[in-house]
């Protein structure tokens, strides 16, 4: 039975051309899916907890641009890192570039807090 890509004329050269065409289409499809997937990842970012875990213990402020939020609770879900710096002013300036941001300290936490 002729496949979807093969030519109905049954001539050998025609079938070969059809097979080549199918292979090319397969390559294009894989490329399309891969590039599309990377773009989606870029747009959606990385889970925020995962980002903070990666920088844990660095005694710095991590500035994150929030890329997606939980539709129910509005809590930030994913984002991308804009800056990692121990300087508060620098962290604030980096946050200005984001449409939606959060800044978290990833260093040691005070055992006793009296404010």
């Amino acid at each position, binding site marked *: 039975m002729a496949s979807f890509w093969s030519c109905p004329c049954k001539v050998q050269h025609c079938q070969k051309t059809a097979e080549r065409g199918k292979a090319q289409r397969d390559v294009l499809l894989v490329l399309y899916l891969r590039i599309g997937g990377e773009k989606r990842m870029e747009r959606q970012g990385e889970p925020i907890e995962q980002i903070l875990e990666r920088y844990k213990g660095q005694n710095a402020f991590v500035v994150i641009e929030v890329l997606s939020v939980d539709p129910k609770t509005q*809590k930030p879900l994913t984002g991308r890192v804009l800056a990692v710096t121990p300087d508060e002013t620098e962290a604030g300036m980096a946050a200005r570039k*984001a449409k939606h941001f959060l800044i978290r*300290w990833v260093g040691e936490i005070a055992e006793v*807090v009296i404010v």
Partner: protein
Amino acid sequence: MPTIPFDARRRVIIVEAVAFALDGRPADLTVLVDTGAVKTGFRRSTLIGLGIDVDAATEFLRVSTASGSLEVPIFNLPQLRVFGAIFTNLSVLCLPLPPTVPADGVLGFDVLSKFRLFVNYRRGIVVAEPFNGIWHGMRFVWQAIWAL
């Protein structure tokens, strides 16, 4: 959302809030519920991120803390959303909080006094309901009973 969980193991009440810049950009914050603080304040990085020029303050306030007295600048925060309520043009302090304090700011009396508050430290639950009439009062009692 009047019932808010917090991590009681941290031995401080830290809740989430959202502050908005003048152009509407939101910032997700963690804030300390500090019943001993008179005014609400945020750290420098947060205010800068919201587009406020912290070095151009015209108004200052002398505050007394556990570690001494200091003068801090006052700014106008366009919008703050906390415990489900929205505060607009809130006067806030720029606090020199050490980085080791696990929060972006402090909720003081000026904000907390707008709510009925109930805290269950053992379960790590805060019930906060604004003073908005009898319906909210009843809802607060109902939520507090559930949080017992």
